[in-house]
């Protein structure tokens, strides 16, 4: 059975999401990023690699070619928010925006985050409101990719790209590990509660 692995850059907020209940059991292995080896990026062994939010892009850029090879060989890669995905993954178009942490205090709070394609499988695990918190910017997904979470009038906050490479690239600007791991913002915990079972199922098939 292919494994779901996650990269750990040692920050406390990644620790909580990757090493502690209730999410630790979703991962087959946690790889300390400075120790990531070629064998970890073999699709025969590793079905999916999750790069949690706020992993410094400086630590990921040296693996750019290895990640591209992994996708070309059919691997699945999940890149989360504030990892500078455009710096270490092919074909990423990113637009930075101001961050409004206080949008929910407005009289009529609506920060423009919308459900994308309602037919995407993630929505069987997640309610649209579980993906709504502040955003740091948006992506312009490649043609043929499925936008799962939209930023109205701008682009995508989460998309699933099965067309650009033989593998699968799931890219999001959302940063749920950071906020869940900081004991901050319950929506981010709800997001992981739906997202990780979905990802697990996509990698290994349904649990029997």
């Amino acid at each position, binding site marked *: 059975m292919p494994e779901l692995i996650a990269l*750990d850059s*040692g920050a*406390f907020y990644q*620790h*909580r999401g990757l090493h502690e209940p209730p999410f630790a059991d979703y991962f087959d292995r946690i790889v300390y990023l400075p120790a990531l080896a070629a064998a970890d990026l073999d699709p025969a062994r590793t079905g999916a690699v999750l790069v949690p939010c706020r992993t*410094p892009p400086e630590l990921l850029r040296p693996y750019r070619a290895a990640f591209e090879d992994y996708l070309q060989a059919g691997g699945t890669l999940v890149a989360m928010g504030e990892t500078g995905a455009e710096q270490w993954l092919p074909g990423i178009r990113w637009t930075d925006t101001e961050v409004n942490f206080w949008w929910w*205090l407005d009289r009529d709070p609506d920060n423009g985050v919308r459900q994308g394609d309602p037919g995407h499988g993630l929505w069987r695990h997640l309610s649209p409101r579980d993906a709504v918190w502040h955003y740091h910017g948006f992506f312009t997904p490649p043609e043929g990719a499925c936008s799962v979470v939209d930023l109205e009038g701008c682009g995508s906050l989460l998309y699933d790209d099965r067309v650009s490479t033989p593998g699968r690239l799931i890219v999001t600007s959302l940063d749920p590990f950071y906020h869940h*791991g900081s*004991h901050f913002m319950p929506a981010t915990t709800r997001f992981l509660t739906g997202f990780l079972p979905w990802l697990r199922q996509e990698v290994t098939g349904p649990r029997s």
Partner: protein
Amino acid sequence: MLLFLRWYAAKRPGMLDAAPWAGRVEEVELYDLHGLDLARYRAVLVSTHHDQRYLQARGAQIEAYLAGGGTLVFNGHLVRPFLPGLSPFVPSRGAGVEALRVRRLAEHPVFAGVTAEDLTFRRGVAGFYGRGCNPPPPGARLLNGVGPEALPLDWELAWPGGGRLLMHAGNDLWMYEEDSSSAARLAPQLFDWLTAEGG
């Protein structure tokens, strides 16, 4: 000379670029810590975003530095204790604002004139400053508490030989330096404290 351990894009104190601090604080990437002679520095500061696995692996170096009279300022939820006597972060229990309310437990130069209210609320929202504690070893001086149990969110521990550990279990103390509240005093008072008296 002070040492600020950088962590890539993590926000550094802007005041390091201007008088009187420009040139008095050396900035080095965290991963270069192992090659440094820490005895050269009066104090070492580490940001909340850093790699705790690496810091834990450098525990002996840090312990020797404190035993030699150095001062360490730690920010963040401790998940990988790097010194004997330290233990992992404990979140504040309870719900709502009361779980996040900060209380002054003892006066300290870093917090002089900084109100507990301004540590509790930032632009009206509670919880930015800290949401629990890194449990203090016996003998620590408890400075600020959070929540109904007043979990010691900030504390200072003295080492025989003059070493000091200032522990803050939350966002970087210098995060507030451009705020309009009394919390803006934290960063300059921290650097003043680190360079005052003996240390």
